[in-house]
C-alpha cells in the first residue's frame, strides 16, 4: 500500500462517495469528517506526485507550487478548525504568489487568501 494513501478501508469508501457521487449514497452524514478531509488532501497530493514523476523537469516548478498550496491548506484546516497560531504564521509569511485556502465549518463558508505583490486580497 502506498505510504501516502495509507488509511483505514472504511475511510476510502466514504471518500469515494464524495469524489465520485456513486448511485448508492449513505443516508446519513459522515461521522469521520476529519479523516475524510485529510484523505482528500492526500488524494490530490498523490495525484501531483504521479504527474511530477512523468512530466519533463521544466514543468516541475508549476506543479510543485500547486503542491505547496495544497500542503498549506492541509495544515491550516487540520481537525476541522482553523488554529489562530498557524493562520498568523502563514499570513506573516504571505509572499508573492502564495495562496491560502480556509474552511470555516460552522459558518458554512470558505475563504481564499492570495498574496500579490505584498497585498492581501479576499475572494
Amino acid at each position: 500500500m502506498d505510504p501516502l494513501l495509507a488509511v483505514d478501508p472504511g475511510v476510502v469508501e466514504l471518500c469515494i462517495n464524495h469524489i465520485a457521487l456513486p448511485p448508492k449514497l449513505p443516508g446519513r452524514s459522515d461521522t469521520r469528517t476529519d479523516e475524510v478531509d485529510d484523505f482528500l488532501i492526500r488524494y490530490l497530493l498523490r495525484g501531483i506526485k504521479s504527474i511530477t514523476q512523468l512530466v519533463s523537469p521544466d514543468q516541475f516548478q508549476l506543479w510543485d507550487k500547486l503542491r505547496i498550496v495544497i500542503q498549506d491548506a492541509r495544515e491550516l484546516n487540520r481537525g476541522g478548525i482553523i488554529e489562530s497560531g498557524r493562520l498568523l504564521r502563514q499570513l506573516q509569511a504571505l509572499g508573492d504568489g502564495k495562496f491560502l485556502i480556509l474552511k470555516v465549518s460552522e459558518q458554512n463558508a470558505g475563504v481564499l487568501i492570495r498574496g500579490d505583490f505584498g497585498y492581501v486580497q479576499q475572494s
Partner: protein
Amino acid sequence: MESASAEQIKRFAAQASKGGSAAFESRETADPAMIMHMLGSLLEALGSKSDKTPCLRKRVKDEVQWANSLNPWRRSPFWLILRVGLSTFLAQKHGGEKGRAYYKTLLAAALATFLRIFGPDLDPETAAFVNAKLARRVAKLENERTNADGEVSAVLGVLFGKLGPFFLQTLETRRKSIEENWRAFKNSSQVKRPIGFLPKYARDYETKPALTSSHPYLQAVMLWRPLRAPNPEVVQSVASAMATSARFHVFASGYFDLARTEQHYEARRRDQSDVQLVGSQKKNCIRLAGEIETYLDQVRGLYNENHEQYSICVLTVMELWVEMDRSATAEYSPLLKFNTVFRPESLDVLTLPRLVDMQRLQTIQAYIQQRDRKCNSSAQTIFDDPSPGCFAEVYFDDSKHSQKLESLMKEIEDFAQKTRLEKESELKTLSAEYEKLQTQIAQSACTYSNSDGYVGAVHDRKRCHKCYLGRKAHRLKIDLFEYPTPADSSEAKAVIFELQCPEAYAKYRNATFKIASRFASAHNTQAAPKVLLKDLFDLQRFKRASMEGVSLASHSKSFIATHYESVRLPTTLSKVCVRNGLKLGYYEQGSGIWTKDARLLVRFHEFCFLRIPQESPFRGLQNMARS
C-alpha cells in the same frame, strides 16, 4: 477566524418552527452571513475592492441524501472549497483557459492514481463506476486539446504526451480486471447451472408406473384379505336430551341473563317513578356508570340480529343514562350549560311493540329535550376540544372545587419557575465552562512535527491537549425544559382540571362516551395521538386522578420526545426554556377515538331495521326497510 470555524452561532443557523417557537435545526446548513457580510465589510474598510480577481462559476451537482437518520448526507464542503480554491489559484496564475486545463489534468491524474492503488480492493460495481468517470474525464481533456486554440492546445498536447499512456494503462487494467471478475463469477458454481441433455429414448423402469400409494391396497385386494369387520357391539345410548340441552343452555343463557337484567332495571324504574334520588349524588352517579358499562359489555353483539331486542337494549341503556345524568347535573351544575351528545329524534327509529315501552321512550326523549332547552340548544358538549368556555374552564372558574384547582395551578407554576431558575443557573455554569475552554484553546497550540513535503506533519489528535479541549467544548450540551402547561389559559385550565378530575364526573363522562361510541355508525379516522397527557413525565408528580377512559391527548409530540431534546452550547436561555408544544384534544383510550365529533356521530339505526330473509320473495324491499 478560529472561533468562527469552531462555534455555532444560533442566530445564523437554520431554524425550524415547532410549537409556535423557533428551534435550532441541525439538519439544514447555516447561513454564511458572518463571513460574507461581516468579514467582507471589515476587509473592504481596511483596504479596497480589487478588479484583478477573476470570477469563477462552478456548477455544483451535489446531492443531499437522507434515509432515516438525524442528519442527511451532504457532499463534503471541504472538497468543494479545495476544488474552488485550486481552480481559482490556477486561473489567477496562468489565465482562465490554461488554468482550467491544468486543473482538469490534476483531477484526472488524482483519480487515475487512486484507481491504480485502490482498484483491486473495490467491489466491481464501484470500480466500474469510477473507471467510467475517469474515462469521461480523459475523453473531455482529449476533446479540449483538439478544439482549443494555440497555447492551450500546446500545453495539453505536452501533458498528454507524458500522461496519456498512464491514463490509458490505468483504464485498461481496471477494465480487464472487472471483466475477469465478471467472467469468473459467471463460471462459478453459484451462478452456472448445468443443463443436462434430454434423453432420446426411455429406460425400462420408466415405462412402468410405480404405484407407491395404490400398490399395497391393490395387493390386498388381489389376496382377498378382508377389511376390518363391522363392530357388532351396540352403540351406547347417550343421554341425548342432556347433551342437546347443554349446548342450547350455553347459547340461551346469555340471552336469559340479559332479559333478567332488563326486567330488573325496568321494575326499579317503575317503583321509583319521580321520587327524588336519595343518598349521595356522587355515589349514585358512579354506581349507574358502572351499571351502564357492565350492561353494555354483557350485551356485546348478541342483539345485532334482532331489531326488537336491540331497541329494548337501547331503551334500557338510555333510561339508566337519564338517571345518571340527573345525578351528575345535580352534583355538577355547570353541566347544565352544555348539551348532551344525544338528539331526541335519533331515538325515533326504535321498534317497540309494547305500549309501556313507548311510554318509557317518551320520558327519555322529553328529558333530553328539556336538557337541550336548558342550555339554549348550545352546540357545545363536554367532549369538545379545550377552548374558551369549555366545561373544564367553567368548572375551574366557578364551582366548589375552584380553590383546589387554583392551588394546583399555582403549584405547577411554582414548579416551572423553580425549574426555570435551575436551568438558568445550569446554563450560566455551562456557558462559563465553555468560555473558559475557548480561552484555553485560543491560548494554546497544537503539537506537531515536520516531515517531507508529501507525507506532511505528524499530529496525533488523541494526544494533543488543544484538540482534546476542542472536543470537550464541542460535547457540552444542555437539556431543554418545556413548560408543563399550554400557554393558552383555557387549555391550561383544562389540563389542571384533568389532573384533578372528580371521580364521579370522570365515570359519567366515560359511560356517556361508551354509549355514544357503541351506537355510532361511523367513526372519524384521525391519526392516533402522539402522546397521552397521563404519560407526560413532568406532570406525573401532579397527577391526582386516574385519567383512564376519556382524557386529554396531544396531536403533536412534546419537545422533549423529539430530536430537539438537547442543544449544544453556545446558546441562550430562550432556546433552552421553551413553550409547551402540545395540541390537545379529548381522546378515548379504549376505542381509540377522538371525542370532539361525538354529537354528530350518534345514530341508533344501524341495527334497528327489519331484516327480510334471503329466500323471501320480498327481499327486494330490504333497502326501503333499512332507511
